[in-house]
């Protein structure tokens, strides 16, 4: 998005790659359905039934995923089904879609809380840690599910959530673990083919039972809605959203089939503790059946499975809570529901009213309903929602196929969505055999939604003008001019950073882009981020006024989820040569050396990086440049020379010959021709012999006005065991400082990793 607004533009940070959005979808799917569903499916449909359940659900889910993929590629905007229904059928149906999605996401959250509770309590029972507790297992599970749901509601209220990358790697870990279980099952079956007898009888209770098991496990295939919600944040959404939807459903389906197979062959007939046929033994444990089976399959099976369930259910619980919050917030924002639902906490910037109402649904359903009723309620609501999306894809292609800009269209149109509609209808109807409570709760929710729409929303909803606005990616024109991006974070020090930028940009004849990152909590759609617009605008206006008379300057306010990721994505999108940003000089984040943002920028930025600390309105008579002979030394000397020119300062290249290596800079100086601004006449060299390089630099720095320091480029494995010299100096040096990192290119990156 580019919005021209008094010469300041705003844009959304596209930070999520194909891998991230695929993992987001997969994370929502591998949350509960598979862990609770396998035992119950074996109990209801038998050993062959569980395999067919996941296979048939997978193919129906893929048909719906193709509908989502087509619509998301044409309308890549946060909102998912809510937007599709609005475009296809208008506001009333759109409200119903949002209303259903709110309930479905909230109830899915309840299911994940219950799953976490069931497997945690089960593991504690295995370890005999709950013998002293005066409650039944069922009550313990309900208490744990209540506590974990409340805990995650609080985390969402605070605005904290797992970062995209960490979450993606957790999901990848869970998926690999489940595939590993499947492979172990296959290995066991090959080694001992008699275990295949566990599939006899294949469908002991007949084919119709499949419709029931398909119904309550369908919730395990609902990840594409969360991918559609990422339309505003995905890189190349027209290409990546459809791919992510198709890949995530396919990976989930193959994984489920593999683990279901492993669960059936895990128990051997006649082994100690197994009475009757193995599938009957697994089935008697119902939702705990999968855990009991895996504990027989491999050593530490109980422990590993509990870990996997904990990670899977918690990440899915977090994702569903903010998904439910987002949709209820959107309904309030559009005045479909009372406006107060879109109220945002001043302190934490999260939509706390929407979160509170979503929390009430999550907690009440988790505590009051039995597990299978929770699963069935979530499934039935998602089935209705997907039913609507499949209808929307047909209507939109037929009526607007020539107007929209598609990134993907499905094959066999309209047969696949029609087959999906019919199958989902049959499965939803059959669920009455599994849970009549779900079949009472779901229609009551939908009918109440229709009543609310006619009594309230219809007269209060805001104008439909511009409701579906698609945010296109901005392509930067190719240019030979050197580009500097200045990330202004704090309005108070914006001018200090700009003054140094002015010197560097003048020396390099560079074009300057000012950037202010505004973090937006995950619970608020990025497209609604204009509510946070005023934050930092004063600083960027101040900076712009200073530079605008001297240089062509672009100023951008960019909304992001994570500041470091947002800056990095801006660097890549805008094809920047140098990034300049400020640093307050200390870190409050545990586990980071210079701070969570600066560490990530130094490590991952593909361009030159300059980080300024206390370099405001000062005169620098003498500048210290500690050198270690690495590639950053020349950038440090170049920056020092540019700054020295202003005050006619002296530069001292300080070389500590420590006990490990003797540094000889002369050949490097001669070979280096890239940094044309280095004035070697201004530089004097000082060498010392010292055992402790850091202390030696810190002692020397006391005599200087400014320290310009290149980051140490140790291999990553070294950095785990010892702190880089540059970081140690930066943390302890009290003088004004500039930290630089030169762009090393791909060869440097490979060298460091190797």
């Amino acid at each position, binding site marked *: 998005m580019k919005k021209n607004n008094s010469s300041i533009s705003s844009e959304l940070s596209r930070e999520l790659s194909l891998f991230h959005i695929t993992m987001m979808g997969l994370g929502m799917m591998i949350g509960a359905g598979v862990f609770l569903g396998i035992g119950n499916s074996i109990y209801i449909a038998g050993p*062959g039934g569980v395999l067919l359940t996941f296979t048939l659900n997978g193919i129906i889910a893929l048909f719906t995923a193709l509908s989502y993929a087509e619509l998301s590629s044409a309308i890549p905007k946060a909102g998912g089904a809510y937007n599709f229904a609005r475009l296809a059928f208008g506001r009333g149906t759109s409200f119903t879609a949002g209303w259903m999605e709110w309930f479905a996401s909230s109830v899915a959250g309840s299911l994940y809380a219950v799953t976490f509770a069931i497997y945690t309590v089960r593991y504690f029972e295995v370890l005999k840690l709950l013998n002293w507790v005066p409650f039944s297992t069922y009550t313990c599970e309900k208490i744990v599910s209540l506590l974990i749901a409340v805990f995650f509601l609080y985390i969402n209220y605070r605005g904290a959530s797992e970062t995209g990358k960490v979450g993606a790697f957790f999901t990848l870990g869970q998926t690999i673990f489940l595939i590993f279980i499947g492979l172990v099952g296959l290995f066991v079956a090959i080694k001992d083919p008699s275990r295949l007898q566990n599939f006899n*009888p*294949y469908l002991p209770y007949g084919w119709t039972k499949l419709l029931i098991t398909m119904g309550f496990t369908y919730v395990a295939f609902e990840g594409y809605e969360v991918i559609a919600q990422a339309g505003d944040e995905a890189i190349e959404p027209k290409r990546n959203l459809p791919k992510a939807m198709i890949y995530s459903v396919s990976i989930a389906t193959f994984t489920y089939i593999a683990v279901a197979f492993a669960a059936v062959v895990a128990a051997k007939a006649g082994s100690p503790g197994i009475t009757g046929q193995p599938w009957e033994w697994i089935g008697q444990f119902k939702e705990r059946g999968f855990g009991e089976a895996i504990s027989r399959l491999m050593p530490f099976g109980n422990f590993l499975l509990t870990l996997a369930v904990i990670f899977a259910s918690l990440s899915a619980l977090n994702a569903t809570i903010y998904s439910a919050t987002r949709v209820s917030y959107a309904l309030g924002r559009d005045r479909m529901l009372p406006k107060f639902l879109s109220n945002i906490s001043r302190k934490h910037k999260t939509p706390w009213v929407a979160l509170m109402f979503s929390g009430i649904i999550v907690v009440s359903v988790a505590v009051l309903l039995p597990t299978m009723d929770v699963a069935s309620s979530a499934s039935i609501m998602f089935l209705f929602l997907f039913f609507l999306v499949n209808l929307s894809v047909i209507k939109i292609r037929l009526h607007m*196929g020539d107007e929209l*800009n598609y990134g993907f269209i499905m094959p066999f149109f309209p047969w696949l969505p029609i087959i999906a509609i019919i199958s989902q209808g049959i499965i939803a109807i059959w669920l009455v055999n599994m849970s009549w409570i779900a079949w009472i709760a779901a229609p009551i929710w939908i009918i109440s939604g229709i009543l609310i729409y006619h009594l309230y929303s219809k007269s209060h909803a805001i104008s439909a003008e511009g409701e579906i606005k698609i945010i296109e990616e901005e392509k930067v024109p190719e240019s030979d001019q050197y580009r500097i991006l200045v990330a202004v974070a704090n309005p108070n020090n914006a001018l200090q950073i700009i003054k140094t930028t002015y010197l560097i940009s003048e020396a390099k004849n560079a074009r300057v882009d000012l950037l202010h990152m505004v973090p937006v909590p995950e619970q608020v759609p990025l497209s609604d981020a204009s509510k946070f617009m005023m934050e930092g605008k004063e600083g960027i206006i101040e900076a712009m006024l200073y530079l605008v008379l001297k240089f062509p300057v672009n100023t951008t306010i960019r909304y992001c989820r994570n500041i470091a990721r947002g800056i990095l994505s801006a660097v890549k999108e805008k094809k920047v040569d140098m990034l300049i940003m400020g640093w307050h000089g200390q870190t409050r984040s545990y586990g980071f050396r210079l701070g969570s943002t600066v560490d990530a920028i130094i490590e991952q930025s593909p361009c030159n990086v300059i980080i300024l600390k206390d370099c405001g309105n000062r005169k620098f008579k003498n500048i210290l440049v500690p050198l270690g002979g690495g590639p950053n030394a020349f950038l440090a000397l170049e920056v020092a020379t540019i700054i020295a020119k202003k005050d006619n300062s002296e530069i001292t290249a300080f070389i500590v010959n420590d006990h490990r290596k003797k540094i000889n800079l002369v050949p490097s100086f001669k070979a280096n021709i890239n940094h044309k601004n280095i004035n070697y006449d201004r530089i004097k060299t000082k060498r010392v012999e010292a055992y402790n390089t850091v202390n030696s630099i810190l002692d020397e720095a006391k005599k200087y006005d400014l320290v310009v320091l290149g980051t140490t480029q140790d291999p990553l494995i070294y950095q785990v065991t010892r702190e880089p010299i540059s970081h140690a100096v930066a943390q302890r040096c009290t003088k004004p400082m500039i930290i630089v990192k030169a762009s090393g290119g791909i060869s440097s990156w490979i060298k460091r990793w190797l």
Partner: protein
Amino acid sequence: MLKDAFLGCLIMVLAITFMIYLIFWSRKTIELIHKKKLKSAREIMKNMNEKK
């Protein structure tokens, strides 16, 4: 019972084969649309039919 197992396995094989076909078809279509910068559904379908 054997008939159920045979039919069940056959359904699984067919379903998985069809899924794999859809995955590869979709991937190919996405790349084609991106490469040729196609826009409307009509334009995309026309291009794909011409290719056949």
